[in-house]
């Protein structure tokens, strides 16, 4: 086991453990200085982004929507967290020169070719299904997978099992053995 990978990255054990420390520090800091414990998560922000985009077009519709009312369409702590992920990844990849403009993921290209249009259609369809599922389940691999597991939530164990169970099954069907 090495602490650095060949391309200048860090061992996933090290980077992961540091995320564990970040989650603890963040839970402490948000409780102390914002008055409410916040846990790492990402998928609720997509609901708020959808609400913010819909509001100028159909203000009454968003106003009356039960789900948008429940979720509260505003730029909150998690919304900035998600924007921060972009900036942090940009900074890290710029520093170690792993930043790379990529139009097609290599694994996808080996199986389905280099058509950007085809990749776009499937990524959008996959994204729709995944987000409907994440909001139904109440979280994603961050909210359930990291934060829920750290709190020993029953829902997190079941959700994470379903995420990977369905993921393994569908990945085998979609990418088959030809991707190896």
């Amino acid at each position, binding site marked *: 086991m090495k602490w650095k990978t060949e391309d200048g990255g860090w061992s996933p054990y*090290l980077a992961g453990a540091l995320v564990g420390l970040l989650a603890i520090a963040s839970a*402490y800091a948000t409780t102390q200085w914002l008055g409410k414990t*916040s846990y790492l998560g990402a998928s609720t922000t997509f609901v708020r*982004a*959808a609400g913010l985009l819909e509001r100028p077009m159909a203000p009454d519709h968003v106003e009356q929507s039960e789900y948008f009312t429940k979720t509260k369409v505003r730029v909150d702590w998690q919304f900035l967290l998600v924007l921060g992920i972009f900036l942090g990844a940009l900074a890290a990849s710029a520093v170690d020169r792993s930043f790379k403009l990529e139009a097609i993921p290599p694994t996808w290209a080996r199986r389905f070719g280099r058509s950007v249009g085809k990749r776009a259609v499937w990524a959008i369809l996959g994204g729709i299904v995944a987000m*409907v599922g994440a909001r139904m389940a109440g979280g994603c691999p*961050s909210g359930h997978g990291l934060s829920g597991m750290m709190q020993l939530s029953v829902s997190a164990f079941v959700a994470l099992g379903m995420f990977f169970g*369905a993921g393994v099954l569908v990945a085998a069907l979609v990418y088959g053995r030809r991707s190896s």
Partner: protein
Amino acid sequence: MSREQLFGLVTGVLFGFLLQKGRVLRFDKQVGAMLLKDMTIFKFMLSAILVGMVGITLLADAEVITLSHKSMNLGAVLVGGGLFGAGWAVMGFCPGTSIGALGEGRWHAAFAVVGMVLGAAIYAELYPFFQKTVLAWKDFGKIGLPDALGISRWIIIPVFWAITLLLFFWFEKKQV
């Protein structure tokens, strides 16, 4: 920018930095995990969970922070979790990593982001329907494993550590 937003931004930058250094933002890593060929994602997530669960439990025991379990709503978690997994395999990103992948230049992740914003809008429209159907089956409420099993968290955590460490040794032996 409010203090709340500033805290979120700083936490997010650190989170994104670590996700990128751990090399878990890539489509190939995520699909590689689901094809059981590349264990990077498992190593990363489980390491975060091992460290996080000790600190979070200690702070919650000391009543410094409050736990916030998500509801164990049977239909929601089973059906929603299954849909998420299926979409995740095709898309190759989860919500947090899609944004991070954009940051490291993998601009095709923008399609995944567009899909997920659409998915969120669709879920908001279908929410009243789901409330009467999938979400209405059975709700066990916001429960933690220690209460559900009647076992102390200070037994569950060492057992979880032991199983996970065995898994890590196996990953390293297999070189995956």
